[in-house]
């Protein structure tokens, strides 16, 4: 079992991720944007962070850059797909700046859990 933080401004997306991850036995916390997520990581030190890219206040790539600066060994998964265009570019950048894996929405439960397992291995 791992302690995982999900950062996403969409309530439904957070709920869905939480359900999948909890059913796989993980302990899950939530944040609605990068600022909240970084603050939680400082206080709770998660094993893995899953972050959306398009978010208010602090978006995903910015969040990954800041998290990797403070926690170089932290495992991060970047997810995106909600926008109208160009999300793949952001996911490429997320990988370049330190996300261990990226997932394009929509993804299946198996794809998510496989990514999580790779990151935690």
């Amino acid at each position, binding site marked *: 079992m791992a302690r995982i933080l999900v950062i996403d*401004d969409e309530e439904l997306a957070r709920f869905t991720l939480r359900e999948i991850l909890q059913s796989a036995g993980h302990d899950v916390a939530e944040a609605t*944007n*990068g600022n909240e997520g970084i603050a939680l990581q400082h206080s709770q030190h998660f094993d893995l962070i899953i972050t959306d*890219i*398009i*978010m*208010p*206040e*602090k*978006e*995903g*790539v*910015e969040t990954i*850059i*800041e998290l990797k*600066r403070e926690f170089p060994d932290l495992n991060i998964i970047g997810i995106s797909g*909600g*926008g*109208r*265009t*160009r*999300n793949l*570019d*952001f996911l490429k*950048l997320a990988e*370049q*700046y330190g996300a261990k894996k990226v997932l394009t929405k929509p993804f299946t439960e198996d794809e998510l859990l496989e990514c999580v397992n790779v990151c935690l291995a």
Partner: protein
Amino acid sequence: MKNDEFIKNLDKALTANSTVSTGRVHLVGLEKLREMIGSDWDRIKDRAHQIVRSVIESRLSPQDVFTAYGDMSYIIVFANLGKEEAQLKCTIIAQEICGRLIGNQSAEDFTDVSTLAAKDEGTLYFKKVPSIKNLVSDLEKKAKIDKREISFTPVDTPLANNIDFSKIRFIFRPLWYVRHEVVTTFICIPVRAVGDGSYVYGYNALPDPTNPMAIARMDSHILGCAAREFDKIAEKGKSALLSVPVHYETLAESSRRKVYVDLCSKLLSRHRDRMVFELVELPDGIPQTRILDLVSAVSFLARAVTANFSLNHKNFSDYRSAGLHAVGVDIYSEERSEKEIMRDMDNFAGAASRNNLKTYIHGVRTTSLKTAAIASGFDYIDGYALTSVIDSPGGAYPLGLKDSYLPLLEWDEARGKLAARANH
């Protein structure tokens, strides 16, 4: 003006002048205007009432008074005008309101002007004012008319003539073309220092930013600046597009439009394929025919004509066929939460794209808003999240999506160096 203050002033106006009568109390109604604007009214009503109050205030003498009457009317009391002159002034006010709100000065179709009258038994009621043509004709017959009052061209006031352009300088904001990850266009912005180290931008750099003559002079001044910058860019052997704002007031009135277009032809015709006009301060309810008229006034002088709207504008049907290349918004002064702004950005870009229009967004100040703008599908983006303003454009240059994160990384590197120095 509050109601009790209005009553006090009304009493003063009626008692100070023995000739004041019911014929000087008028009602300007906006009901038909609301019907014309339709479902957009709720969105623009606050701004509309602000414009109505501003128009009335600008046309009244210090002795005259006015107040809102219900949600859709304004009562105006003239202290020193005769009935017909007061009616004419109200009609002019109504026309100006229509011009500012929907770009159409056919006030009779969109507003009601009524005069307070008394029935034989003494009951008061509001009687609809006859058409403006009949009014003018009546007044001409009486030979009492002050022809200046009929003109819709504002008098060239001292404030319009008294602009110290030596205190207004220009800066340029690079506009990023998202699809090709390149800066090709520079937006010309007038700025004036205000003494405490801060600056005022755009038409706020004018002593009176609402004076149409001053606005037109500023627009002409911007053309001069653009011509000089094109020469400088050419001297450097580079190429770039320049986008200049042109205010609705400058193109809406025929004499001001002619001065502007003539000057543009003279100064910038050889740069036509690198000029972009951005129509700004368009009335919220402007009909498509009026947009067509404004676009055609300048399109032959430019590579593209764009238009700036409020972020909650959603109805773009027929704007493409009116000749607009792109529609855009400025979010620099938005004070709402980023989540709300992002939702409206998505709606705006979606509505424009469904009407085959390109989109641009000014004033993107955070990385999260920049990312949201890209994801929403905006074609052109500018703001501090991407680039800083510059004094003079040096030509087009590439700017990758990755580059927009460099300041974060540079900060990281700088902090790393500081830490390393501290450890030694």
